[in-house]
């Protein structure tokens, strides 16, 4: 197989793609863009070489899906971190901290605590009884066909939501950072990811994730060192500087609005370290927290990582390492976000990206010497390249999970009922990879300009409401059976998606119109007042100031009117609602208990002697690892 030639070609296409001259303006100044390409070229070269080596090791289907079970605990820990720390958490959380202080940091906690659930009840049992996919666990003592179908559909659903968010988020991110066209960056991510997964399977995916995690952690440590050193590595010293900064105080004043009127600058600064600047709805926060701490344990691409290690002990070790790396990373993020709030400032961060995603990259540029320095731009280029690598590594893991559900569960398990040769299974896996990859690229391009941020939350909601109850109860509750699995998957998935469809996450034309009308009214009043003042003003500087204010108001009014026009006569959201029927943005608090209830009710109503008869086998095996399939020797 000419995998080497393909890998080379893919690398060249990818490089050519990002080197195509584009005029769009990104965070990286045009004259320094070659630095990003150079750094990214090095990363692509290394990962392509790894893929070439990996391709030679992928001989059978166990190699393709599970790296032959030959990954060590330490390696898998890094790979889990690489699989998990998506661009959303890498750039997004630093951004939230830089704009909202304490609340952003509080948000990061759930992403680590999630791994306690994975460690205690998921990782080791799954390693002991599973093989390649989530459905392997669900089908163990249940009706093969039914359990595999619902497990595979759920895996594909969750992975597609997450994948779409990654592709669209990644495309926007790369455009913001380097100024490459959206479509090109989606295609480059897609082609690279396909090259890794198609030829190197899980072996290459694992190494791409390890390399990316090491780069990410290195970049973060480097930045934190640079931003923290001037304060002698003292936490109070650093935070005193943060809250004493006028940019930070200004941002808090902006967020608080009228409430900030009677506050001193010191109080405003200190407020940055207190809760409540971002999260106003505690129930929604708790609901999101539930989706995180239970959803991670139900994420098919995370579960799949535990099949790559030889024993339950290695699975345990890999979660411990992953927790050290992921937790350490989020603690560093506190310094990245706070540092960026102080050094770069919320105004400059929001100028490039309203969501704050550029806080980390801009901080890199600052500590290197600023926008006009070579070193500053080298740092920025490095962080931009790491962001790109991050997207590719996460997407590769997701595509592999979705492809394994399609090929291993649906094709081999359900359609062919296991009567498939090794070679044919590998071929099926590769065909499924191409299908999922092509789908990811297509969805990515079609979703251009869509707001997909809530899709990550939706993926976690489905994983926590459908996958997690099913996996947990089939592992730990004797009477759980096929009826419970099917009902749990259906109810969990449908309530999570259904509640989001009627939630405030969607766009409601009437609400947008009302907001725009308010803006127009306010700006009209401003215009009238400014015009009257202008007529009365005699001094030239005052006139100029008023003229500028008039121009600004006219622009804001124009923008609001354009938005009104865009909505036209629409009155309802895409599901036909004038206003949200469910007030929470995160459905977890309702859909997770419902998912559990559905598994329990389904199991009690269905009754299956075989599931109960096989309980002893499953329970002994998940606890002892007896008859654990030994990894294939190379």
């Amino acid at each position, binding site marked *: 197989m000419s995998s080497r030639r393909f890998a080379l070609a893919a690398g060249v296409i990818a490089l050519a793609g990002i080197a195509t001259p584009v005029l769009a303006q990104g965070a990286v100044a045009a004259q320094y863009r070659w630095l990003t390409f150079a750094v990214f070229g090095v990363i692509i070269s290394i990962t392509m070489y790894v893929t070439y080596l990996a391709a030679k090791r992928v001989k059978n289907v166990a190699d393709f899906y599970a790296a032959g079970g030959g990954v060590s605990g330490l390696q898998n820990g890094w790979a889990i971190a690489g699989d998990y720390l998506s661009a959303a958490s890498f750039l997004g959380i630093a951004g939230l901290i830089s704009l909202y202080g*304490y*609340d952003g*940091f*509080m948000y990061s*906690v*759930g992403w*680590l*605590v999630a*791994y*306690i*659930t994975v*460690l*205690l*009840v998921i990782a*080791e049992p799954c390693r002991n009884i599973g093989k390649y996919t989530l459905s392997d666990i669900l089908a163990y003592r249940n009706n093969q066909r039914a359990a595999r179908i619902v497990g595979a559909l759920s895996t594909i659903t969750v992975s597609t939501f997450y994948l779409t968010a990654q592709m669209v988020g990644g495309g926007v991110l790369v455009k913001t950072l380097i100024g490459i066209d959206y479509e090109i960056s989606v295609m480059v991510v897609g082609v690279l990811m396909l090259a890794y997964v198609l030829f190197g399977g899980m072996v290459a995916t694992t190494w791409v994730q390890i390399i990316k995690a090491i780069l990410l952690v290195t970049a973060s440590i480097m930045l934190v060192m640079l931003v923290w050193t001037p304060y002698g590595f003292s*936490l*109070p*010293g650093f*935070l*005193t500087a*943060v*809250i004493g900064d006028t940019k930070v105080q200004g941002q808090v004043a902006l967020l608080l609005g009228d409430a900030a009127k009677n506050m001193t600058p010191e109080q405003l*600064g*200190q407020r940055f*370290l*207190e*809760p*409540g600047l971002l*999260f106003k709805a*505690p129930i929604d*926060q*708790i609901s999101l*927290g539930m989706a995180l*701490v239970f959803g991670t344990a139900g994420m098919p691409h995370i579960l799949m990582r535990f099949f790559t290690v030889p024993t339950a*002990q290695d699975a*345990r*070790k890999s*979660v*411990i390492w992953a*927790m*050290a790396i992921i*937790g350490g990373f*989020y*603690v560093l993020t506190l310094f990245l976000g706070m540092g960026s709030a102080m050094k770069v400032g919320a105004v400059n961060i929001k100028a490039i990206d309203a969501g704050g995603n550029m806080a980390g990259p801009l901080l890199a540029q600052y500590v290197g010497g600023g926008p006009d320095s070579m070193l500053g731009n080298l740092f920025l280029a490095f962080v931009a390249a790491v962001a790109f690598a991050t997207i590719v590594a996460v997407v590769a893991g997701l595509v592999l999970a979705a492809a394994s559900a399609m090929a291993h569960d649906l094709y081999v398990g359900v359609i062919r009922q296991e009567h498939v040769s090794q070679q044919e299974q590998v071929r099926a896996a590769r065909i499924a990879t191409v299908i999922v990859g092509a789908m990811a690229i297509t969805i990515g391009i079609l979703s251009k300009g869509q707001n997909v941020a809530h899709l990550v939350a939706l993926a976690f909601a489905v994983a926590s409401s459908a996958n997690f109850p099913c996996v947990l109860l089939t592992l730990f509750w004797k009477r759980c059976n096929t009826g419970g699995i099917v009902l749990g998957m259906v109810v969990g998935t449908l309530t999570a998606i259904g509640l989001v469809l009627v939630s405030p996450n969607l766009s409601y034309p009437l609400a947008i119109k009302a907001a725009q009308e308010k803006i127009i009214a306010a700006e009209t009043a401003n215009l009238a007042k400014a015009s009257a003042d202008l007529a009365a003003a005699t001094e030239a500087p005052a006139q100029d100031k008023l003229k500028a204010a008039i121009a600004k108001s006219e622009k804001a009014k124009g923008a609001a009117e354009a938005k009104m026009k865009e909505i036209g006569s629409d009155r309802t959201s895409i599901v036909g609602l004038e206003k949200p029927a469910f007030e929470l943005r995160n459905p977890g608090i309702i859909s997770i208990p419902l998912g559990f209830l559905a598994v329990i009710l389904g199991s009690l109503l269905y009754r299956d002697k075989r599931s109960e008869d096989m309980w*002893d*086998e499953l*329970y*002994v*095996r998940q*606890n*002892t*690892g*007896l*008859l654990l*399939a030994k990894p294939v020797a190379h």
Partner: protein
Amino acid sequence: MVDTTQVDWKAIDSRPEFQELHRKKMGFLWGLMIFSLIYYFLLPIGAAYFQDIYKIKVWGPVNVGILFALSEFVVAWALAFVYARRANNVFDPMAAAIVRDAEKQMGGRK
């Protein structure tokens, strides 16, 4: 493929050694799990309803809220460490003994 039919699973399940492993492990796992959930959800609940406590300054500008959030990391790591120690020192040897006996019996039956 492993052949799972050659093992008498019911017999292993009902052995006192396995029952002891089951009892010890379940109590420990669910205890840690519940503790970790309570400790985690205290953070957003406190941030919403006990803001005044979070605002108390302890160490320069560092307040109770920041220390509590940082402690979440420490507690998560500590729980992982405690679990790993118990699993390595208690559960693994117990499971290994059960596997050894079972394999001996399987060998004897062949």
